[in-house]
């Protein structure tokens, strides 16, 4: 960074197709000005946004994540996805706080299609705020390696966190008060500490260790042997996958990519097959099934 050059925060926005994206569009058409820090990804519903998306954004250099959806009870889908986004964001904010990042970096707002002004106002507020917070990690005093390790640890735990969200952190009533009451209450804090923080503590914040975990789950020689046994033919795809699943008890994504390359089969087809039935598992499983 050259002297005098101010920090330009990078903000990634997930805007829901029906309300917030339209609102942002309206802001643009009406020429309401706001700083150009935000890059927008249009999703069909704010409920689509996954913790994996948020943490991937942070891991790839974004300084803030903005999620925009329809006002509560106005979700265009019968399933009220925006409530799912609400719950998810509460948990992710707590996670950010837990690993030492400022939870204000994750922002959830409800903007309707006609509220162009509101959208630009929000952006005008967020921009300077994020500037003040500084770059991700550095602003909180974490060094690069440490930040990377912590984000990796959370990312690995995300499938489990989603499970906890849907099973133990579920709010039975789709009402804002119910959500606010639950997520600002003692029980949420307790459950978070018991179920999530506890597990996270088992990942020591040193990069080298997370690499170790990776190595023991992928025995490349075994995988190569299985592929070569079937003469690396595309038609033996299912047999190869079955054998890998049997030997390894799960199939890591890197192995899928390897199989795709060696058998010359599109990765999308492999993923189609592997996600089609419970026979295959993309997550580590115990050896006793």
């Amino acid at each position, binding site marked *: 960074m050259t002297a005098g050059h101010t920090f330009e925060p990078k903000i990634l926005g997930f805007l829901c197709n029906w309300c917030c994206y339209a609102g942002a569009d309206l802001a643009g058409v009406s020429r309401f000005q706001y700083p150009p820090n935000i890059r927008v990804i249009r999703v069909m519903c704010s409920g689509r946004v996954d913790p994996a998306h948020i943490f991937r954004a942070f891991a790839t250099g974004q300084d803030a994540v903005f999620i925009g959806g329809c006002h509560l009870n106005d979700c265009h889908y019968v399933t009220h996805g925006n409530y799912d986004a609400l719950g998810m964001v509460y948990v992710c904010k707590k996670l950010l706080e837990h690993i030492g990042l400022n939870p204000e970096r994750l922002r959830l707002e409800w903007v309707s299609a006609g509220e162009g002004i509101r959208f630009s106002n929000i952006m005008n507020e967020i921009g300077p705020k994020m500037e003040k917070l500084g770059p991700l990690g550095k602003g909180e005093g974490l060094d690069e390696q440490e930040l990377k390790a912590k984000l990796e640890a959370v990312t690995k735990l995300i499938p489990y966190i989603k499970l906890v969200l849907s099973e133990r952190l579920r709010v039975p009533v789709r009402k804002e008060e119910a959500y606010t009451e639950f997520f600002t209450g003692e029980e949420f804090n307790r459950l978070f500490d018991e179920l999530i923080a506890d597990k996270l503590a088992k990942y020591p914040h040193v990069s080298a260790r997370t690499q170790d975990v990776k190595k023991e789950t992928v025995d490349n020689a075994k995988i190569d042997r299985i592929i070569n046994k079937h003469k690396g033919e595309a*038609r033996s795809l299912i047999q190869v996958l079955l054998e890998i699943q049997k030997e390894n008890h799960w199939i890591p994504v890197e192995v899928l990519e390897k199989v795709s390359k060696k058998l010359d089969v599109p990765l999308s087809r492999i993923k189609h097959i592997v996600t089609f039935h419970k026979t295959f598992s993309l997550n580590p499983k115990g050896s006793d099934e």
Partner: protein
Amino acid sequence: MPKLNSAAELEKWRKGVLSRRDPDKPSIAICAGMGCFGHDNGKIFAAFEKEIDKKDLKTKVYLRATGCHGYCEKGPMVIIYPDEICYMGVTPKDVPEIVSESVLGNKVIDRLVYADLDSGKKAVHPSEIPFYKNQMRHLIGSNTKIDPQSIDDYLAVGGYSALSKALMDMSPEEVLEEIKKAELRGRGGGGFPAGWKWKTARDAPGKEKYVIVNAHEGELGAFMDRAIFTGNPHCVLEGLIIGAYAIGSHQGFIYTRHDASRMKNNIDTAVAKAEEYGLLGENILGSNFDFHMEVHLDIGIFVSGESSALMRSIEGNIPEPRPKYIRTSVSGIWGKPSALNNVETWANVPLIIDKGAEWYTATGTEGSKGTKLVSLSGNIVNTGVAEVPFGTTIREIVYGIGGGIPNGKKLKAVHFGGPMGGCIPESLIDTPLDFDELAKLGAPIGAGSMLVLDEDADMVDVTRYFLGFLSNESCGKCVPCREGIRQMLKILINLCDGKGKEKDIELLEEISEVTGAASLCALGKTAADPLLSTLRYFRDEYEAKIGKGESPAEKRE
């Protein structure tokens, strides 16, 4: 083991095997079928080994873990040859007594033989036991004499003589003619004449053709393919090679479940041994006919037993069916003509070639020739795998072989074909077992699974169970099946919970019309069959559930 390069060498080897076996030496056949496996027959086998070792009988006695004997209800089963003493419900504790009394001595242990439930009369030999004596065990009869890991056992009962006859003495067209004359119909559920299918494949353009064994057996309640294939894999292999010769195919596929490890093990051994003996591979028995085999596993779903889905799966794609505007026998795997048949169908082929079509057609009815394996389950005294000639009435099967209904209950219906079949009510059980007769009554024979239901069975609940199964197994490709089954299931769940509404039955009938007409494959097309069949014969049960929530069964109490 040098390869057998001619029919003469095969016969010489067979004679050698037979000469090395003493027919008077006692032989112990322990059933290692799936049912008995669940009863820990491994421990019984170990107990026999120990006892034989202890009494130093290793060279004086043959000990075999054979394929399924069929009488699953009475497992674990042990048969002592040459006297054919059938012991049932054997435990490891009984083993020393069996060895000392029946193997070394000539005595029969009374408490271990079959006893009639009502009269208490004992029966020792299969020719006396009602379950066995009312069957015609052409296919499964040899299971008790064969260790599936040994090819010599199969040769000893005359195996592969049909192959040698076909390859040496008959032309491919003659083999095809013989199968056509025998009127062999597919045993997997379609009942399509195998001869016609083979002819289509043979006449289709192109030099590369494939033959496939469908060993998937996904149908609920069907376990006879497993019994034959695990117990006697060679008879299916032999049928496949003969079929390939008739069609002109040089590559065969066996498609089986990934979770049946013993069956897979036996198949792999059988293929390896056949190759070793020169009965598979290049220049089989010196006839210039080449044939290779590949074993493929499924990924664990019901729909991959459907022929076009199966072929997609062999290609390495996801098993989804396709509409069959063009038959798979013309365009199958990789677009090449592929003749797919069920395990039992292939198992019939060596019999037909060996004994001739005339002998074969003497058994059975006008439209259905030969025998059929049926798997009996449900509310019936004798569960297991039975083999009967076509034409046997259902009454004879349920009472004569099945032993009737336990606990003094009355028979209500027999359900054929699992989730894609229908039921025959008690009033119609004098119908003979026949493809066309049963189809006329709305209960196609399917693969041969017979689910026996007694008077306490709730037919609406049974239908709901089948639809629940199918809704999980639907591949989801076409709307009528994916959505139709789901909606029908919802209505049935409401009916079962007593929340039935007016017009529910009419709605069900309407939806089933659509799924039947518009689905892409047999799963969707026949999904509504159990529903339509139970509506046909047990409509009052459905009507009772509408608004009132009380079924006739409950009313009776």
